[in-house]
């Protein structure tokens, strides 16, 4: 198991007319293949900035980012992004929404198409392939967004608070679904959240960031047994131990 992702000593400064903001300071982190990592921290500490750096949407002021030992210097398709909003295109049906990345990359091969349809069917969206986003519930739309990120077969999934717009009940269900999908597809995932509960329920490793400028305050490895789903984890006594540990670290 090698490092899929490594962020080495990255600092990020934002310049605006009024101010310059040191968003990240000397941040280092790595992710192993298939690992589910959550990043928690106070708002404004640079969580989204980390994901933007990994996706190559911004260049680090200092330091470097590698995916599969390739240095990232611009937008990359090695990582794929999922946002708080599903950002589905309302003029395309579900199938076309899911395959938009494949068509943009001219990878609409029969094998890829078949894989996407299998994914849609496997995750309960088979009957909605021809539907339009407006016709789907919030939870289903987020699942479609996840399959869109999976369709191009990226090495890393970047999830930026993807559940925070959902109501509580739906959020628990979608967390479960997304967790299962990502584990079954053996993807490496970086989840940004400010919900400790969510982080403990889903991750292998939690990285706690300090307030701005963000640096790694501590890393917590979660030793749940692998077959437990987020729902099962919530029933474990260990869950509350980790929860408190993160809570203390955040204070």
């Amino acid at each position: 198991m090698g490092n899929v992702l490594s962020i080495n000593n990255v600092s990020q400064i934002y310049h605006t007319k009024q101010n310059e903001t040191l968003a990240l300071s000397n941040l280092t982190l790595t992710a192993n293949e298939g690992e589910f990592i959550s990043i928690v921290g106070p708002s404004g500490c640079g969580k989204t900035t980390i994901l933007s750096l990994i996706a190559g949407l911004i260049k680090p002021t200092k330091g470097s980012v590698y995916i599969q030992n390739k240095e990232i210097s611009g937008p990359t398709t090695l990582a794929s992004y999922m946002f708080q909003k599903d950002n589905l295109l309302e003029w395309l049906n579900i199938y076309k929404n899911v395959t938009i990345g494949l068509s943009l990359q001219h990878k609409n091969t029969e094998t890829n198409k078949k894989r996407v349809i299998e994914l849609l069917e496997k995750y309960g969206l088979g009957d909605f392939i021809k539907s339009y986003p407006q016709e789907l519930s919030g939870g289903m739309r987020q699942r479609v967004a996840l399959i869109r990120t999976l369709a191009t077969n990226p090495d890393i999934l970047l999830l930026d608070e993807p559940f925070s717009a959902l109501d509580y009940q739906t959020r628990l269900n979608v967390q479960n679904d997304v967790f299962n999908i990502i584990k079954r597809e053996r993807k490496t995932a970086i989840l940004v959240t400010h919900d400790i509960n969510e982080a403990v329920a889903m991750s292998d490793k939690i990285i706690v960031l300090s307030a701005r400028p963000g640096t790694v305050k501590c890393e917590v490895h979660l030793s749940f047994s692998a077959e437990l789903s987020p729902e099962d984890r919530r029933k474990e006594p260990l869950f509350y131990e980790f929860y408190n540990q993160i809570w203390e670290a955040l204070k």
Partner: protein
Amino acid sequence: MKKDYSKEHQNYLKKQKIGIFITHLSRILLLFAVFGIWELVAKAGIVDPFITSSPSRIIKAIEELYLSGSLFSHTWATLLETILAFSISTMAGFLIALLLYSIPPIRKILEPYLIVLNSLPKVALGPLIIVWIGAGTKAIVTMGVLICIIVTTIGILNGFIGVEEEKLKLFKTLGANKLQVLTKLILPASFPTIISVLKINVGLAWVGVIMGEYLNSSAGLGFLIVYGGQIFKLDLVMAAIIILCLLASIMYFIIALFEYLVNKKRNK
């Protein structure tokens, strides 16, 4: 898909249908009522039809125009000018908006000028246009274009700028190049805005062309209106206005139809 609805729902649907029918019927009745009352008060001598005209006199005026062979030439002149003004300003406005959107520094530089040009009453340029371009069709179309183009440019540009930042990010991480961002995201996402701009533009094109015809022309509906006013033939003025109303509605309808067809094609 046909479903077996409950009795309550069937009743509800029926009521809705009746409601829509009544609305349409009332609209038609209102139109007839207005023209009917107009005709009656003019016939009864309550108002002077020489000043107010009347539906029957308007029909007669249109008939006279037709018999003299000038109905179609006047209507066609105005229609052609309007279509030209509309198409030229739409295409040019679209291209300018695209240019300004793609090159932000140019957008920044030109922003204040756009605002000034937008608030300038373009009719004020009439005499200049006549001197520079000469009287006639070209000048009239130019007037129409001037009135439409700034609104088109600003409207379409705002549509482009309104595309969500996150969607642009999404497209970048999905590996889209600049052209793909334009054709697969910016254009389809701003389609509703573009349509509403076109709808405004149809109205403005008529305004511009009639304005141009007022200033200088020897043919067209605007010319008929001015001419009719000068010789105090208000039947002729009203006839031209009625024809204008019809044409403007038809053009608006064509755009609405275009919108409907594109939406239908999208939702397939």
